[in-house]
């Protein structure tokens, strides 16, 4: 589903325009603007081709009756895939369409739930990891590299690996928990509706915490050392230093890391598809869209789901940027 691209931050173009409106341009700045456009043109062209075009095409398909076996013969049907009232003729009727599909809203809920919980845990753990990795100790570079291993493993491989570890009969997880006495009988982690979502979250946290740690660590290393020295001389408690000095200074880095991660989490597909395919409790928006696009004869309906997925993610991202007052343009320093 390469056509689902969302949350593009406000472009340089918009910022330029805003700045340009503020004061009259000189010849030099006009020339700079021109060369900036020249350099940006290839990227804009490529983005239009690989992201813009599929997106437009997907939105178009969502307004047709396309099926995979006959894409050319798709006819425009308006918003029927989103919203439709079918009158059965005897005074009775029913609403159809994505907006009235409880399974779709269940997928939206699953995705948001998964994203909020996993990103929260990953941020807290990532911050802790970053603080440890930022400290001076022997063998730090080895540990820094080792921490990245889960992130380097392809998701399909780590999902399959965890699926075996969580297997109820042969899985090492049950074996370990039972031998130390936490469990009395094996748990079917990925099959039980109560644990399935948590199984997915555990694997995601394992995989993505290094990514968060890395981004936050980069932010930590930007903090000038003299700030800490000053705090030390003043005899301020380290915990207070963390809350009053470190955290405010790395806040921008954390916010950016969170939005990267959240965008990824909201599109989650491969992990769930491998670990708990077809479970109602873990079906995400992307899995729902894939199922309709390719498994069922409902390409148009799946396209509508992809379009809504795009809108949902765009909405959440804009909301987040607004609430966090995130400055992606790098101004206001």
């Amino acid at each position: 589903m390469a056509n689902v691209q969302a949350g593009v931050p406000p472009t340089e173009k918009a910022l330029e325009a805003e700045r340009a409106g503020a004061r009259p341009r000189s010849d030099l700045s006009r020339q700079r603007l021109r060369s900036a456009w020249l350099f940006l043109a290839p990227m804009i062209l490529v983005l239009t081709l690989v992201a813009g075009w599929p997106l437009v095409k997907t939105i178009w398909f969502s307004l047709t009756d396309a099926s995979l076996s006959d894409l050319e013969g798709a006819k425009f049907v308006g918003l029927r895939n989103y919203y439709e009232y079918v009158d059965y003729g005897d005074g009775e009727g029913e609403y159809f369409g994505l907006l009235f599909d409880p399974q779709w809203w269940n997928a939206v809920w699953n995705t948001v739930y998964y994203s909020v919980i996993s990103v929260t845990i990953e941020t807290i753990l990532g911050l802790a990891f970053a603080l440890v990795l930022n400290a001076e100790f022997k063998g730090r570079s080895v540990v820094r590299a080792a921490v990245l291993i889960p992130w380097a493993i392809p998701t399909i491989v780590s999902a399959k690996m965890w699926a075996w570890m969580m297997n109820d009969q042969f899985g090492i997880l049950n074996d370990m928990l039972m031998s130390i006495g936490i469990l009395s009988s094996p748990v079917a982690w990925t099959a039980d509706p109560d644990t399935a979502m948590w199984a997915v979250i555990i694997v995601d946290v394992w995989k993505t915490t290094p990514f968060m740690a890395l981004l936050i660590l980069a932010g930590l290393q930007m903090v000038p050392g003299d700030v800490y020295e000053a705090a030390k001389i003043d005899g301020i408690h380290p915990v207070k230093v963390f809350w009053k000095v470190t955290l405010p200074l790395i806040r921008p880095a954390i916010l950016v890391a969170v939005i990267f991660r959240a965008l990824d989490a909201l599109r989650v597909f491969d992990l769930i598809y491998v670990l708990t395919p077809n479970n109602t409790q873990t079906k995400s928006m992307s899995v729902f869209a894939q199922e309709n696009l390719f498994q069922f004869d409902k390409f148009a309906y799946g396209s509508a789901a992809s379009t809504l997925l795009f809108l949902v993610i765009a909405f959440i991202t804009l909301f987040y940027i607004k609430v966090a007052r995130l400055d992606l343009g790098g101004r206001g320093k």
Partner: protein
Amino acid sequence: MNFRNMAAAVAASALFCAGGASAEELALVSGSVGKDISELRMQLDEFEKESGHTVKIVEMPASTTDQFGQYRLWLSAGNEDVDVYRTDVIWAPQLAGSFVDLKDAMKDETPRHNPSIIESQTVDGKLVAFPMYTDAPALYYRTDLLEKYGKEPPKTWSELAETAKEIVDKEHEAGNGQLTGFVFQGAPYEGLTCDGLEWVASSDGGRIVSAEGDITINNEKAAAALEMVKGWIGTIAPDGVLSYKEEESRGVWQTGNAVFMRNWPYAYALSNGADSAVKGKFDVVPLPAGEGGKSAACLGGWNLAISKYSKHQDAAIELVKFLSSEKAQKQRALNQSRLPTITALYDDPEIAKAQPIVASWGEVVENAVPRPSAPTKRQYNEVSKEFWTAVNETLAGRGSAADNLDKLEKRLRRLKRREWE
């Protein structure tokens, strides 16, 4: 599409190089369970020697659901790289438009095959795919354990539950804590539709959707059957059975950790393999019957279909003829206990000796219950998904069987609207 042009260019240049020779390069795509692929490769080597063509296998995962999504994508993109598809028995109505009509090409072979299987692959008079082997599940049971406790192989589901419980309880007391009673395919996927259909149909609860297209699933007998199965989870069947497909259940069974297993005949040859803990300690019977019903086995099986985008259709037909021939089907029966579709092979003495399950399964195949893929047409996959979801949720303890079947009926009615299409 670019990639179509590219494929055409490759094909054209290949033609030049070959100078019009008859040896062609074919690609066959197939899912894999057990020893499917190594066995197929062996037969293809033979075919290559006989015909001079070469055949490449494109290997796919075991799950029929995963395969279907990929194949549909390739076919709708007009993929020319794959000539022959191994197709599930339920796919014919959904993929009919993308495959070549085999009616004329196979007219000499057709009469020797089971007519209802040929019928299942015929859509509006077009023979979409030709049978390679068929499938009808069995109840596998441990002869050693049943003998030890003086039990007969069960004829009904309640007998099965009783026997399993008694044996597991006593074995657990004796220190065999790993043993579980019954394993089947409970993961939410196409396999659960088979298992679920068997429980419902064997309790006289109908076939989800009738041959005329009426939605029949919401009835008391079907609900009672699912409630019965729900009672097994966590007692005679492990909780994890709700994530098992064929190979996971075979894993538990073949390591000697289950008294009973519901599985396809392929597991027979593998369970008798040298590395199997249950070798020589098991046998098979037809699946048990439910209350007021008779044993029902879901009709499975795999077929061969030729893509209409293939550039080598004549060679592909040769390949289909070879792989569905009596010789190939016999080999598959002998080595893998795969059930032939050529009816005469059920009387073959050599097969009867090597794989007794095959010889005794003729009648089960004759009476096998088809999934409602014909009446629900192109919507079958969605119908099946709704059914397996309802069954899986019931077994997992999310809502009662009656409520879930009620919801299922409403969902199916929404899908169908006026007519299946």
